[in-house]
């Protein structure tokens, strides 16, 4: 859970957040390309969640398992909710919502790792 894959997810999310923030600054509306990038991140998160649950099932470490799965599922819920909530917004606020969603993903990944390491009760 603390391996290269988590880093990849974090970097991709941060890159997308940067993209969305630049679009916010330039007052651009969400495009199909940004949406496709969001779908890519969602696919990465899905693999992260499945991998996490498989790894958890095969481990006898003592940690907060319900919380671990909760955070993995929370990660998965964020991008779709953000795109859904940002749709149809006329101002640049829609893009801010999407940027926020991308920014929160690294925090969620970090929390997943902390729970895995047992430091969060």
């Amino acid at each position, binding site marked *: 859970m603390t391996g290269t894959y988590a880093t990849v997810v974090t970097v991709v999310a941060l890159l997308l957040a940067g993209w969305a923030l630049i679009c916010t600054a330039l007052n651009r509306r969400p495009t199909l390309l940004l949406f496709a990038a969001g779908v890519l991140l969602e696919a990465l998160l899905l693999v992260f969640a499945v991998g996490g649950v498989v790894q958890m099932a095969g481990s006898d470490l003592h940690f*907060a398992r*319900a*919380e671990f799965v*909760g*955070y993995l599922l*929370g990660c998965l*819920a*964020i991008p779709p*909710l*953000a795109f859904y*909530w*940002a749709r149809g*917004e*006329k*101002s640049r*606020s*829609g893009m*801010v*919502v999407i940027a*926020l*969603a991308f920014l*929160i993903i690294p925090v969620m990944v970090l929390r997943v790792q902390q729970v895995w390491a047992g430091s969060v*009760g």
Partner: protein
Amino acid sequence: MADHGVVDPGAQHWPTPTGQGFGRVLVAVYGIFALAATSRSAVQIATELYKAPLAYLLSAFAALVYIVATVSLARGDMTSRRLATVAITIELVGVLIVGAASEWFASVFQHPTVWTGFGSGYGFVPLVLPFVGLWWLRHTR
């Protein structure tokens, strides 16, 4: 959205929806806190409520307040506006009281909630958020 330029003289004044423009961002931030507080308190209560019942029940209460604020700000009709005002006022009072209490009676608050230390564990966003929320409700009235 109401067109303030060409209003029918007989028409009622409709407030700006609270879930559009800047409101989208505000609802998103409230949503993040609703999600964070709910997941945290659900697990705390399910697994170790006996350890710190006050803190964990407070977490659950905060989660409920954030959920109500998120949904009512997103809906934005007249009833929802009132509900949002009540929820955000409770949120403001909650973060101030719990923040102050956690400073003075630290022993009771060893297990953190979102509002402990005026939300210091969450970059003080929980302290700023209710002020922004109440401002937004006034601004869009």
